[in-house]
Every structure is written in structure tokens, then in C-alpha cells.
């Protein structure tokens, strides 16, 4: 039994000691958002936030998450109240087969939490662990930029909110 906070609510999951977090999430937690892709931290499909830090759930021991906060794509928002990133992915139509999106969205959420106006290069770097076989990369990057513009600037903002604007314009034709 391992206990942690999952998408803001406490859970106690019955998993064997050797289980990975991905097993716990896709098994007893009943989630499908975290995806199994490679099992070796090489594709990013299983990415979740562990205490706010993007982490590959496929190799992370479930036990090591005890007492910590896990956020999956399901925890970012809902159909009725989507996270600004989810709204932006809809607006930019940033996704095709969609298998990579769960992981990409949580990595992007972590990026925007620490850098509310990331430059394009910062977005590419943050998404570097993520493979997208459909080649949606550029629309995904535009969606992250759109979400950054849409999100209210935090009071302790550490950079000018307009940092990314030039990149947005440059990307517009791609």
C-alpha cells in the first residue's frame, strides 16, 4: 500500500513493492492519461509531475512517491474547466494521434509554472524528452506559447510577460 496525493486528493493504492508509479496509476488508480510508450524514459509518454517536477512514471518506484504530490494530465483540468494549456492545445489543434500529449501537457505545465513567459528555445528544451511520431511539434510549441499568453501573470513574476512574443510571431507561418 502506498499513499500519496494524486491530482490533489489523497489516495492509498494497493501495489506490490516493486511496482512503478506508472503501474500504480494505470492499475489501481484507474487512470489512462499516463501512457506506456517505451518503459525506459525515452519517449515521455508517461510523464507526470512529482512535487511539480516532470518525472517519467515508468521507471519511478511507486513507493518513492509516498507522501508526495503526483499530478497527471487528468489533474491539470477537466472537460468543463480545462487548464489554459488544454484550452490552448484545442485552439491550436496541437495533436494528432494524441498518445504523446498527456506527457507533453504536464511537462509544459511545469515549464509555465517556473517560467510564465518562456522563449521558444526554453519550450523546445522542456519538451526535449518527448517523442511525437506525428510531427505535431511546431503546433505544440505554439500552443504552449498561447497558453503562456493566456495565463494570468503570477504576482511574483520573475520576467517580463512579453518575452515570448517575438517567437510567437516568428512561428506564425510554420
Amino acid at each position, binding site marked *: 500500500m502506498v499513499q500519496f496525493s494524486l491530482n490533489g486528493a489523497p489516495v492509498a493504492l494497493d501495489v506490490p513493492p516493486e511496482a512503478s508509479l506508472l503501474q500504480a496509476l494505470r492499475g489501481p488508480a484507474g487512470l489512462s492519461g499516463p501512457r506506456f510508450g517505451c*518503459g525506459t524514459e525515452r519517449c515521455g509518454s508517461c510523464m507526470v509531475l512529482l512535487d511539480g517536477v516532470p518525472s517519467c512514471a515508468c521507471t519511478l518506484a511507486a513507493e518513492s512517491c509516498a507522501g508526495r504530490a503526483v499530478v497527471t494530465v487528468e489533474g491539470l483540468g477537466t472537460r468543463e474547466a480545462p487548464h489554459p494549456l488544454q484550452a490552448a*492545445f484545442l485552439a491550436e489543434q496541437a495533436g494528432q*494521434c494524441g498518445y504523446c500529449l498527456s506527457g507533453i501537457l504536464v511537462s509544459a505545465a511545469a515549464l509555465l509554472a517556473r517560467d510564465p513567459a518562456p522563449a521558444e528555445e526554453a519550450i523546445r528544451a522542456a519538451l526535449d524528452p518527448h517523442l511525437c511520431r506525428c510531427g505535431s*511539434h511546431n503546433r505544440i510549441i505554439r500552443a504552449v506559447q498561447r497558453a503562456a499568453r493566456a495565463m494570468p501573470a503570477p504576482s511574483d513574476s520573475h520576467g517580463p510577460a512579453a518575452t515570448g512574443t517575438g517567437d510567437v510571431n516568428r512561428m506564425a507561418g510554420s
Partner: protein
Amino acid sequence: MNSITRPSLPPGGIANLSRRGLLGAAGIGTLLLGFGLPTAARAQKGPPMSRHATAVAAYLQIRPDGTIRLLSPFVEGGQGIATSSAQIIAEELDADPAQFVVECAPAGAEYQIMFGDQVRFTGGSFSTRASYTTFRKLGATARAMLVQAAAQRWGVPTAEVTTSPGRVLHAASSRSLGYGELAEAAAKLPVPADASLKDAAQFRVIGKPTPRLDVRAKSTGAAKYGIDSAAPGMLQAAIAHAPRLGQEPATLGNEAAVRAMPGVHSVHRLPGAVAVLADRWWRARQAVEALEIGWTGGTLPEDFSSASQLAGFKAAAGGAAQVAETRGDLEAGMRGAAKVVEAEYDAPYLAHAQLEPPSALAVFAADGTLDLTMPNQAPEMYREVAAKLAGLQPGQVRIHSPLLGGFFGRHFLYDTANVFPQAIALAKAVGRPVKVIWSREEEFRRDAYRPLSYTKLRAGLDAQGMPVALQAVAVGEGPLGRHMAGFLANPKVDDSVVEGLTEKPYGIAHHRVDYVHSKQPVNIGFWRSVAHSMNDFFYESFLDELAVTAGRDPFEYRMALLAGSPRHATLLKAAAELSGGWQRGPYDAADGTKRARGCAMASPFGSEVATIAEVSLKDGEVVVHHLWVAIDPGQIVNPAIVAAQVRSAAAIGLSSALLEEVVFEKGEPQALNFDAYPILPPARMPQISVRIVESGAPMGGVGEPGTPGVPPAVANAVAALTGQRIRSLPLAKARLGTT
């Protein structure tokens, strides 16, 4: 599972399946229509119409809340077919596409709407062009029934009844009803055969960038793929495949210990594999990895390698050839040439590397019938084989086709590359539902790879350096001949080996494509754009070599050769215009890099494509800055989806050009995960600009055509930059240096 049989096909095959199909290019239509398309469909110059086009009840369910459930013949795997299909139907039904809920239809004759109602599959970039007229008729028929139902309810003539999206109106009495309120009554009416189609000038939905229906579920984690499927009481299976194809499990050293591992239910020997069943997949996987398996035999020889296969093809190149396509007199043309240029090209095995690992869930019902849930591109074909394996009639097998986490040709019937035979065997063995998932490693071991291929090219140039004769000799074996031989138009020539070498638009007087059949022991499959994925690289790179030999600019050289092909010349000019005007370079870019550009044409899947790439070098590695792609699919349904598909196709083409290669050594694929089989990462994704040219030609495909122009455009740009001609992919193998 070597007993998998091929799906039955109409006698005489289906002409030109992978190349053009349907209406194809002007001038070869009679060949393409050899399998009995209705004359009416031919005459109306549009895609063909199925006799199931009025089977409204089989396809559409209008719910009381006004949402419209479409059972589509096609499976959604990211290509956007659910949305564009809804658009076509919504246009004629007069509905909002956003009200559609689209699912892939079960196996059934009423969904076999392709090639004269003989088959259906999702592939070959066929879906939209194969269903366009059928879906329009379907929507128009459903609308006519709703209008009739409203007229009856109101007691007014149908001529006075109109529609607005989702509603039926009677203006004279200011009455209206939602489709959902009329659906039940409409469904009881006789189905009209004569519902007329709109004039294209009235289109409200077709041609618009309608938002995709599937992005919301995919961006909230709610989307369910095959790997997410479940059944009460199911066991989960993990597989260990034999390292070499055709090996069988001989010994299980520690079977008792593995059986005793937590959660393990049982251990099973399967053809070419061992399976462990457990309560959870992860436990099954741990257990199967702990098994000490001794393997024996093997159809793939121990000394087999990619290099040995390529050497085999080279040795076979001089052997007996079939003429795949010819015009003029090749040898006479060569004799009259001022100069002869020859080159050899090759391309490697490729993995599909779709992000969703393959799976299959088999559930036998109490009455012995079977439910199968799995990623697949061809439900009836899967059903037929599944029924044989299960000892059932096809009607006793229900095929469920969930969203695909990418496919790119991965999910056809590929013998040892299919999961479902394992699921059926295991479910039968244990008398419980079984879900099998292949780990990424097991997927890399048993994918049906894009074939390794080798082509010799020879051209005769006149005194001005223009080609008067050109011969391509393609050596190898293709997935069509291997897995779907009944689809071959000419049984002696595997179109999935020669397409991309044939049907070129260039005005070369003497032109011949030869095919030398040479088997390869590796399992091979359709990979996005099939033989175009390598042949357009071969041909368009060679054409660039000819231009360089002639001292001509490659773009101008092509334009000269396209003098008799205005559609292609227009398209190549459009690509140049999109890129800000053609310039080959090398030139100095604003950021201090030295860059150059290459161009290429391709004629895949009924569409025409012109591609320009801009590259530089960094630390000996190719950096692609920008791809410009002009595509002429004749006519389109959704410009946003077409552009997304072209970008997607270009990205996979670039990935293959730069990075991808499945290498066999000692009979085994060397890469078993993404660490050793890199695909294009975000950092190497260039800008991709797309221009859609609607020439009004018969509708072509859009899912694959963006792929094949990219490798030659990039390689030609590299040649412009470095003077080095790349004749073997991927580029990552080459040592490149700036001039």
C-alpha cells in the same frame, strides 16, 4: 503464428492499390477502373459511390440530444479522418460537424465501401477520396428522411420544408424541430434512393478548417486507445519473442520458479514466443523477462545482416527482370546519348515506431463467439483471419477498433507482427479474457519493417546534358507481394517495390523501370508512403546528379523536363514561390550559417508534391532549417487537416532521412528501444510551410504524400552545400564536411 492466412480478395485483384487506385491520374483511368466501378461514378468525374451510400441506419444514429453518432469505415489514428468524414456528411445532412461522435465501425459488409464495395481499410491515403461521394450521398439521404418526417408531422408538403444546421424548418408556419426530435420517426421511413447532392458552390462545411473532434479527449487524458481496453476477469500477457525470427522455444529453464512469482497465472509456449499470464501486465512482464528460454531453429539465418541483405540485392540486380513500365526504346536512347551516368542507391529497414505499443484483447463469450479489441487498419481482414484461428465463422467474431496511438502502416495483417493470434491462443488456453501487450522491445523485435531496398539507375544525356534515356532497376521484395498479393495489378511486378520510380512526370523520351524480385527473410510491411519513401529519394537524388553533371541548376533542370506537364511545373513553381524564390546556394544566412537548398518532386497516392529543403551543417551534422511543401491533391475537404497531415508526413520523412535505420546483425534487429532507434526530436524539427494547390484534378490522398519529397530535397540540399552526394540513408551514417 505462421498459419495466418491471407485475406480473401476478389479474383483478378485490385488494380494499383498502393499507387493510384480509384480514379487515378488522367490517361490511365481505364486500367485503374479494371475492377468494375459503376459507369455512373466514372461519368460524374468524382470519386466513386458505394451501393451502401444510402444505408443510413448502418452509419448514422441521431440521438435525442441532437448529437450524431457516425460508425465510420475508417479508424482514427491522428490523421483526422473522423473529423473530415463528419464534415462531408454534415455538409449534405445540414448539421454541425461538432455534433458528431465518430467511432470505427465493426466488421461488416456494409462498411466495405472501397474498390467497388469489395474491401475497406484505413491506409494508402485512400479514406477521404474513397468515401467522399458515398458520405455525401449518405448525408443527403439522411437529410431527406428528416425532411420527410417533419413534413408528415406538420402535414405540409416536403417542398415547403427546409433545414438549418441540426434543425428542420417550416418557414410559412414558423415551426421548427431539432434533428434529435425527428430521428425516431425518420428512421421508420423508407430510404429514398434519389436524394440529390448539393452544388459544390453551396458548400458550407467542406473546404473549411473545421476543428478536430478528438483533440479535447486527447488533451485531457480521457482518450482510450487499444492498450487501455479491459474486460472483467481478464488476465494480462507479456511476451518474450525469439531473438531471431522463426526460432521456437525449446527449453524453459526455470519455469516452476517463474510460475511461483507474484501474480503469475501460467506460462505458455507460442509460435516464436513465450507468454506469461498474470493478474497485472507488469507482473507478467517481470516474469517473462525472468524466464530462461532456450530457442531453437530460425527462419532468419544466424549470419543474416542488413549488410548481407544489401549485398544479396546487389548480386541479384543483374538477374531476370520484369518490365514494370516502359516508354520509348531505352537501349536506342542510351546508344544515342553523349554521356551515360550511373549510380546505385539504397535505403534501410525502418521501424514504424508508433508511440502506442501494440496490444490485443480477446474475449470469448459464453456462446463461443469472440470479441477482439485491437489496433487495426482493416477490420474485415482481421476478422477473417481471427475466425480461422479461433475455429469460428467470421460472423461469430466482433472486431473493435479503438483510437490508434499512431500507425503509419503498422496495423495490417503481417503474420508474425500481429498480436491478436497470441491473444486468441491464450484466451482459448485459459478460458478467460486475455489482453496481450507487447513491450517496446518486443515491438522492435517483431515489427513488419519498411523493406530494405536497392536500386540501380542509369541515364543517357544529350549534348546539352538533358536526359534522353533513363533506366531504373529496382531489386527486392515489397509488402504488397508479401502480405496482400491478391491486390497486385500485375502479379509479376510488385508495385510496392517500384512505385515512385514509375509514373514520373518528366519528359524523358526513353524511360524504363525494371523490377528484379529478390526475397528478403525479414518481415516487411507498409510504412508511410510505402515504396515512395525510398524510391523518390533514389530517383530525385539521381536527377539532381544529372543536373550537376550537366552543369545545370537542378530546379531549372526539372522545370525544363516538366515543359510538357503543366500541373507539375505549376506546383514546383508554387514551392519555389513559397520559399521566397528558388536559390540553390550555398549562401550565407543572417545567423552566420552557410546554407543551401534542394528540391524534389513526388507523385504519390494520386497527389502531386513539390518540396524544397534548406540545410546547414553543424559539427558535421545536417541541420534542416525549413521545409517548403506544395501539394496538389486535386480537391480537399479540410485545409487545416490537410496541412497538418502534410507537416506530419514531412516530419516522418525528415526523421527517416536524418536518423532512422533498423540494423540487423546475426539475424537480430540491433535497436530494441528509442535509445538506439532515435526519431526526430523537438529540437530538430524545422519550420514546415505548406501550400495547398487545388487544381481540380481527381481527389488524391493527403496522409502520405508529404513524406517522400523530403529525403531527396534534404539530400540534394546537402549536395549543394557540400558537394557530397548521399546515396545511402540515413544521413546520420555519412561524414559530412563543408566545402
